[in-house]
């Protein structure tokens, strides 16, 4: 039995100033119980995890009082090669955690670090791969693996090092539900077979059903406000626990999204589709990703795009942004779109999977202003009245203020977009694209790694846009519940083509 304990911890990122991320924090995690930690975005969950892993305060921030201990030892004082036997970590971004080229070399790298004798390495590597059911990947290059496969390799690394604790920071944010459940189940198995302590930070609890023993929750200020919650499969059965979760900005599994949408039935749609994709084919280095994909999108409707990770959702969006070379045809309002016009400012707007991919300005304020200007420019060209631009300037400045107040970022207007938290960046990204005034919006996982309240706020903003301006929305997501509650039509990307979901899944 092992224990991670936080005693009177106060932690802040700036050396001066009084913005403490964690203050007076007292909490214990027992290796006997698989624990999931949840809470609003920006409340300090990752910070807590990094402290437990001994990564902070070595790499960032100041621990101004209190102590973090694993069975009496301070993890940040252990040298890395001893520390990794106590705590292993799995990160959110699967692409940024490897240093070698192939799966086998990566595992060997881990074992070399802790001076395992050479003769033993082969069998440990095979055992770890077998445990994760990825023996077939042994000599694959890491680059060619999908996100889910990368996370499994990471798990294999942890299984090989066999630490007392495994800490996970939103490990499933980039994965589809099936890979997520596979990995969660493997973690449960590690826990049972070797007694490994598991502590995970996650917003979506579905994937932990039947695995997690306990949920702990934090409030916006970084205080621990809920402990000992359990997950129940049936919605509303244990209302005490789901209320407590709501206060941590997390929903119990299976909760419905509170959208008061009037869903459009197919009959209501216009006869002429706004955007038509015909026979879109994309292949990367010989392997086809999209094969002859056809789709019609009608004005004013919302479409959800489901699909396993690696099925080509982002690739489809890249086609429309002019980023992926493709074969096939596109029609907008019935007329063909030339390939080199893709990606220019125009009627189609994109929210990228990673919000940082779309920032172009130094400040939050300018980010919105750029969008408004781009919109004014396109309008002016259309109306052949460029003189108007200057007089519009003043009106735009007022508009920026109302937009930023709307997403609660007016106070942050002078900071760089990169300084915002994950959730704030996502809201800014959506708002900036909405300000462009596009007729079709493509949102690549708009609610990815968001807490419950942010998810609702983002979807509500999109909903408003559709209601006010008749915008068409196409969004990809791994959250089937969100798709069912929000979309008029659901498509699933499978084997390179779009399948329309039948209505019964709702």
């Amino acid at each position, binding site marked *: 039995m092992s224990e991670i304990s936080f005693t009177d911890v106060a932690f802040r990122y*700036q050396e001066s100033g009084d913005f403490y991320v964690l203050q007076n924090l007292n909490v214990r995690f027992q290796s006997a119980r698989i624990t999931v930690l949840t809470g609003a975005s920006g409340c300090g969950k990752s910070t807590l995890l990094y402290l437990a892993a001994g990564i902070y305060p070595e790499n960032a921030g100041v621990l101004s009082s209190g102590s973090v201990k694993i069975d009496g030892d301070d993890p940040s004082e252990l040298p890395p090669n001893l520390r990794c036997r106590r705590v292993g970590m799995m990160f959110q971004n699967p692409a940024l955690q490897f240093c070698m080229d192939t799966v086998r070399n990566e595992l060997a790298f881990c074992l070399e670090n802790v001076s395992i004798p050479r003769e033993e390495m082969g069998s440990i590597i095979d055992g770890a791969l077998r445990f994760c059911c990825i023996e077939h990947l042994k000599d694959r290059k890491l680059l060619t693996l999908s996100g889910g496969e990368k996370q499994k390799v990471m798990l294999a690394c942890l299984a090989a090092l066999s630490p007392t604790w495994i800490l996970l920071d939103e490990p499933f944010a980039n994965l589809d539900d099936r890979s997520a459940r596979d990995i969660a189940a493997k973690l449960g198995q590690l826990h049972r077979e070797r007694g490994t302590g598991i502590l995970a930070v996650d917003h979506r609890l579905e994937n932990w059903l039947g695995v997690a023993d306990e949920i702990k929750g934090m409030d916006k200020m970084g205080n621990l406000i809920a402990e000992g919650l359990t997950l129940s499969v049936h919605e509303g059965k244990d209302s005490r626990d789901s209320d407590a979760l709501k206060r941590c900005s997390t929903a119990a599994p299976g909760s419905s999204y509170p959208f008061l949408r009037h869903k459009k039935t197919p009959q209501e749609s216009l006869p002429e589709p706004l955007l038509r994709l015909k026979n879109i084919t994309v292949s990367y280095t010989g392997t086809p990703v999209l094969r002859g994909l056809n789709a019609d999108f009608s004005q004013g409707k919302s479409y959800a795009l489901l699909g396993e990770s690696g099925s080509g959702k982002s690739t489809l969006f890249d086609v429309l942004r002019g980023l992926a070379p493709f074969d096939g045809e596109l029609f907008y309002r019935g007329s063909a779109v030339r390939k080199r016009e893709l990606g220019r400012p125009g009627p189609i707007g994109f929210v990228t999977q990673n919000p940082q991919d779309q920032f172009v300005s130094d400040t939050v304020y300018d980010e919105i202003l750029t969008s408004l200007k781009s919109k004014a420019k396109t309008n002016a060209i259309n109306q052949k009245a460029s003189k108007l631009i200057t007089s519009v300037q003043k009106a735009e400045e007022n508009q920026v203020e109302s937009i930023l107040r709307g997403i609660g970022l007016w*106070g942050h207007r*002078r*900071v*760089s977009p*990169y*300084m915002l938290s994950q959730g704030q960046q996502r809201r800014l990204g959506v708002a900036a694209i909405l300000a462009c005034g596009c007729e079709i919006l493509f949102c690549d996982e708009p609610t990815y790694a968001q807490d419950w309240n942010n998810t609702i706020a983002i979807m509500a903003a999109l909903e408003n846009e559709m209601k006010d301006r008749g915008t068409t929305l196409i969004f990809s997501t791994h959250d089937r519940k969100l798709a069912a509650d929000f979309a008029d039509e659901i498509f699933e990307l499978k084997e390179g083509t779009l399948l329309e979901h039948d209505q019964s899944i709702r």
Partner: protein
Amino acid sequence: MKNDQWKLRDILMMSILGVLFAAVYLAVFSGGMVLSALLTPTGLSTFSFELIYGVWFMASAVAAYIIRKPGVALITEVLAAGVELLMGNAGGLVVILTGFIQGLGCELGFAAFRYKKFNLLSMTLGGILAASFIFVYELYYLQNYLLAPGLLFAKLMVRFLSAALFTGLISKLACDGLARTGVLKNYGIDLSRQEVLIEREEE
């Protein structure tokens, strides 16, 4: 700096900048190739690469700006050369040597100010020194002394210009932009702290 010891993070930062600028260089290189093809009939094709020469010292200047420790500029350039070698660079094994020579030039630019100044002046100086060092080296190594002195001089001037533009001006502007975003806080460089205030918002 209070801590001159290099951390793993610093070395990764240097290598990543090496990879990044190797990629930028390759992209610009193909642009230079087109230009060079256009200029070939006039015999001025060598100038097209002189024009972009400064891109290659950017990795050094940027790394030194971010990490601010002695030796960073030199090692970054050598690491960048190592990356180029791994990529299958046409120049062959000597890139490591040229990397060392260029890095040394950049390093001296910062050393001249005792690693106290990381500004336009030191960055440009580093670039110019790197450009001259590598020029002297190429004089012998590529037997450039076979070329007419007038042409050599013109080449050198274009290279200086390129160094001042890329290694000096563009690197400096990009780095300042970087510092303003606040991500360099861990490196003790935080221009944003005095300027930017986050206001509490009433709900």
